[in-house]
């Protein structure tokens, strides 16, 4: 329990600590409740049923927003592999989204390929792009990766804007929508289900990755790189895995987006897009899958609900980011296991009183 305290070195640390304690106790109760396997499965089943039922009752606008949520969930889980699991900062994640969207768009428009066949190809393209960026930079300090990915993000956008095959500035227009076992996917509800399925798949894959040998290696590198290397982990290779796997998520989300929008243009892949995805990951809690999902939710829903704040939005996000990093680097989601921030905690909690 003591481990859960966040280092806030102020005079009222005591009261703050108490509050956090009560909060943790409440959540612990709830967790205990979920330990019962019957309850767990029934809750999950009800949740899924509601999510599946949602399109029957909701307006088109709401479905559009929810589809965007699932889309963000996929992207954020992808970035989470890079930032959360492997502890690398990528500032050009939108580029992989672009790689996927353009690959699918071009193959459908110019070569008349079936949408479902373009998916493996766009994943392959993302792997190649990830390797091209990751190989030179992952050997260096992680800061270089941040700026190189930032540059790469801009470069991809500029390249897409200047090449004839990507339709230059106007982008690709009129991408035909796919059929799914004879069903023409043209309504927003179809895409809602498609993205929901993709999101559930991503959640599943993320959990499997986290619990795998690879996932433990990531965690190990993240916590102490030198120790990891001493234990015989090939740091560069393991990081490269994270980078490439993360980009595949983005590319697949991009492919689906291309057919959903039927039009893609370089303006969809601006730096702000990458920042938004990163924000969602950081906000919820890097490396924590439920936290990342929560972050994606907040990032999509917040601007839709608070239309009025308009241009203050990014300012608020910037402030939140700063405060979060200083006071609660592990994100909004309650911290239950050793994470990225344990180093900070160790430093600041040594002289804490509980």
């Amino acid at each position, binding site marked *: 329990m003591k481990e859960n305290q966040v280092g806030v070195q102020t005079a009222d640390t005591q009261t703050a600590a108490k509050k956090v304690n009560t909060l943790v106790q409440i959540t612990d109760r709830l967790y205990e409740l979920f330990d019962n396997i019957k309850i767990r499965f029934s809750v999950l089943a009800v949740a899924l049923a509601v999510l599946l039922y949602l399109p029957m009752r909701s307006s088109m606008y709401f479905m559009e927003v929810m589809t965007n949520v699932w889309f963000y969930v996929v992207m954020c889980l992808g970035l989470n592999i890079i930032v959360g699991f492997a502890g690398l900062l990528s500032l050009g994640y939108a580029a992989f989204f672009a790689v996927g969207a353009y690959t699918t768009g071009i193959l459908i428009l110019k070569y008349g390929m079936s949408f479902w066949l373009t998916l493996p190809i766009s994943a392959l393209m993302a792997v190649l792009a990830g390797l091209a960026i990751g190989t030179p930079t992952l050997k260096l*300090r992680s*800061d270089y990766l941040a700026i190189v990915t930032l540059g790469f993000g801009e470069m991809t956008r500029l390249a897409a804007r200047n090449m004839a095959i990507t339709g230059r500035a106007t982008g690709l227009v009129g991408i035909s929508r796919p059929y799914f076992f004879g069903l023409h996917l043209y309504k927003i509800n179809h895409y809602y289900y498609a993205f929901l399925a993709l999101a559930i798949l991503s959640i599943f894959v993320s959990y499997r990755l986290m619990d795998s040998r690879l996932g433990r290696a990531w965690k190990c590198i993240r916590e102490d790189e030198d120790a990891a290397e001493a234990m015989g982990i090939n740091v560069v290779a393991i990081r490269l895995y994270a980078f490439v796997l993360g980009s595949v998520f983005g590319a697949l989300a991009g492919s689906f987006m291309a057919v959903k929008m039927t039009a893609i243009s370089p303006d969809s892949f601006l730096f702000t897009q990458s920042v938004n995805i990163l924000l969602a990951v950081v906000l919820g809690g890097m490396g924590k899958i439920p936290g990342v999902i929560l972050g994606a939710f907040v990032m999509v829903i917040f601007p839709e609900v608070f239309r009025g704040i308009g241009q203050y939005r990014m300012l608020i996000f910037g402030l939140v980011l700063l405060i979060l*990093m200083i006071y609660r680097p592990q994100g909004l989601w309650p911290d239950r296991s050793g994470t990225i921030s344990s180093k900070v905690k160790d430093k600041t909690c040594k002289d804490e009183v509980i």
Partner: protein
Amino acid sequence: MSFQEIFIQQVVNGLLLGSFYGLVALGYSMVYGIVKLLNFAHADVYMVGGFCSLTLLTLFKDTFLGNSWTGIVVSMLITMVIVGLLGVVIERIAYKPLREAPRLSLLITALGVSMILYNSVMVVTGGEYRAYKTGLGFQGISIGSVFVTHTQIILTVAAVALMLVLHLFITKTMYGKAMRAISMDLDCCRLMGVNCNKIIALTFFVGTALAASAGTMAGVYYGSLHFFMGFVIGIKAFTAAVIGGIGIIPGAMLGGLLLGLLESFGTQIPFIGSEWKDVFSFSILIIILIFKPTGLLGKKESERM
């Protein structure tokens, strides 16, 4: 225009652009050298500097200083002090509490500071472009069809002069010595009785002030300001810093000038055209990172983080 004339004109263009890059790159390089932080907010400080000096210049317009060179120089100096202090404040609030934190947290904080800076300017200016009105004209010197305005000459000279002053500051003064020592080993300096917090704050002050001066010069030269104007130059300046060798002061200057020249000539390459100019400079960044990650002036570094 003959081939030679195009060549000379592009060299002139490249030098001015390169000295702006160099000034901004210096700040990246200094901060990185000392606290090993990639300060994303640096590019936005450049933009804030531009707006700050514009405000001052507008105030001076009707006083004896006017909005010509006297006014510009005075407002630039005041801007450098104000924005330099802003840099110190940013360091105190955002970076100092995280000095022992993992690198990722620090990078994200820097990103947050950057967002706060440019978005607050956006809110204040309403996202509009602002005209930077000076009393300067387009008079200049022409040799053949090579044409250089007086403004271009003065700004280039000023930028180079600032870099030289910084170089002297780093190499000849005690403060400079302390900075160099900290960049080698912070903990050791602390043990030796160097007031590290003070020196780090000073580094932020100097680096930020230089970026602010570059912002002012850009305002004077280009004639308009925008809240997002730091973004592109930020990436370019970082590229310049890496080309020269990050953490190395003369490297940042060399890298800046080199990148400026490369870009100017990049526009002239047939069949490629200026649309590929930015792609060109990012590719250089990646190529340098593959073959000589320590930069042109960097020494071989065995440490890896």
